[in-house]
């Protein structure tokens, strides 16, 4: 440490940058970037693959539906069987989706907010329908409730028909679609943690009030997306419903089953017309999902697995 040394600098007002920018050749690429031609090639390949495998089938639905003009398109819906099918599909959705909503919220609450033994097993159970063939899903209900089934006698004695009737269709649909809402909520609620709810409790809120005013608002977009997806799948479920429904025209045909019947009868335009409704629903679902992700990316996130 020296003493008596004094630094004296004259006015240090901002001096503008001295020296011009040297003439530079066009920007070279960063080491973590690919050459432009590579980039273009890869993009082209990816887009080409997607167009070929995803877009073409989608476009086909609408092309085939309108192949004979809008007149023929609308004819498809004049058929009472078609209207019955649409009605049945809506009924199934209106029952299955809210039921799954309640389940999803309840399961997410139990799993995300508490620590308990057997949690991993429970989560695996919820993931199950994703790895089971829909036909197997339908089969297990037949094994249970058909007249030769395990509960067959029991069911017959009550007079309620399950297989080949609405209850069976609803149950099979629920089996295949119940995970969606739960799986949207669980990772998000786990990530959000318990602090918000605990804060609400310390401020005197009751359990229900805390739930409605704190928990739900935090997950509302994920919930919305889960419901949309659940609904799209509930309306579109084919394999499981096909097995339990018995294909009884006008009574147990949902829209997908109706499409199958029309197609097998070579009524292609009608089949695609009905199909186009479901395709439009799928597009709306995807559109809303895209918008949600764009706007509320953070609120949805946390381990977005399907």
């Amino acid at each position, binding site marked *: 440490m020296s003493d008596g040394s004094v630094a004296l600098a004259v006015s240090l007002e901002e001096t503008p940058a001295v020296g011009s920018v040297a003439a530079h050749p066009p920007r070279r690429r960063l080491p973590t970037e690919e050459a432009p031609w590579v980039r273009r090639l890869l993009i082209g390949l990816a887009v080409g693959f997607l167009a070929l495998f995803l*877009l073409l089938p989608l476009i086909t639905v609408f092309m085939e539906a309108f192949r004979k003009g809008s007149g023929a398109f609308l004819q498809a819906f004049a058929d009472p069987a078609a209207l019955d099918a649409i009605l049945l599909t809506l009924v199934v959705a209106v029952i299955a989706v809210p039921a799954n909503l309640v389940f999803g919220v309840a399961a997410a609450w139990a799993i995300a907010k508490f620590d308990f*033994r057997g949690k991993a097993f429970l989560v695996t159970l919820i993931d199950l329908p994703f790895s*089971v063939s829909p036909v197997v899903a339908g089969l297990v209900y037949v094994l249970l409730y058909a007249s030769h089934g395990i509960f067959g006698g029991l069911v017959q004695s009550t007079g309620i028909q399950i297989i080949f009737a609405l209850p069976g269709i609803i149950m099979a649909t629920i089996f295949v679609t119940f995970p969606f809402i739960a799986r949207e909520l669980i990772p998000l609620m786990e990530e959000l943690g318990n602090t918000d709810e605990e804060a609400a409790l310390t401020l005197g809120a009751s359990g229900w009030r805390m*739930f409605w005013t704190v928990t739900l608002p935090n997950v509302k977009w994920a919930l919305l997306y889960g419901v949309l997806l659940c609904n799209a799948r509930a309306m579109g479920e084919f394999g499981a419903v096909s097995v339990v429904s018995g294909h009884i025209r006008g009574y147990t045909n949902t829209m997908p089953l109706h499409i199958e019947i029309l197609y097998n009868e070579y009524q292609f335009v009608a089949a695609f017309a009905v199909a186009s409704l479901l395709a439009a629903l799928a597009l709306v679902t995807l559109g809303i999902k895209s918008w949600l992700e764009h706007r509320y990316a953070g609120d949805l996130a946390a381990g977005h697995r*399907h």
Partner: protein
Amino acid sequence: MTLNAPFVKPSVLPGFRLTIIFTILYLTAIVLLPLGALLFRASSLGVHELVSLALDGRTLSALKLSFLTSLAAAAFNVPFGLLIAWVLVRYDFPGRRFFDAIIDLPFALPTAVAGIALTALYAPKGWIGSIAALFGLKIAFTPLGVFLALVFVGLPFIVRTVQPVLAEVDRELEEAAATLGAGRLRTVASVVLPVLSPAILTGFALAFARAVGEYGSVIFIAGNIPYVSEIAPLLIVIKLEEFDYAGATAVAAIMLLVSFGTLLLINLIQARARARYGHV
């Protein structure tokens, strides 16, 4: 809450009992009971019977077709799924958001709708089918058609499992490899891909499991000729219609085994990746 004290960690938050009981009841009614029925039925058949039913010629052909086409489709989806994930994560281009959203189409579109659309497309008079016919190639109603339909079905699985992992890859790793002298291709192959491999495997397994059980997207394009182009799920439906519950159960049991096996495998992959890298 003395009942729950050893079972659940005490918490100030309410509602555990209510929600867990409801959840368990719901799952029991919807999942456990029906699956239990299947296991009960399968076990009452006895292993010997099960095996002989499973090894029946027609069943074997159906299983072979389902498994092989599913494996092939999932494998085919790996490089393309990887490519698509890369392009969506690393590059920006007009329409990127649109293509990102459309990846989920096979997921949101009803399988029956996909089924008839794919058939119309690949049938001899369809857009692609007619081009293929010029080369003497028949797609619809052959295993090739099944394969292409399963490619459609499985694509989102690979892309969506790889995407988030790729997005999280630390650019510094690539920079580090570059400072050490690795060229771009070498860097991607030796530094980025290994990080992605658990996700790729998981995506492959998910796509495979989904494809094996796929019904609606495939039965229209499959041809459904016994021993030739009949898929396993269809076999189950046919046996049910013939009231051959035992046969249907046998095939279903095998498919269930495959499903569980795949689920287990995925969990193992993820556990191992977590241990090794501290993430999935």
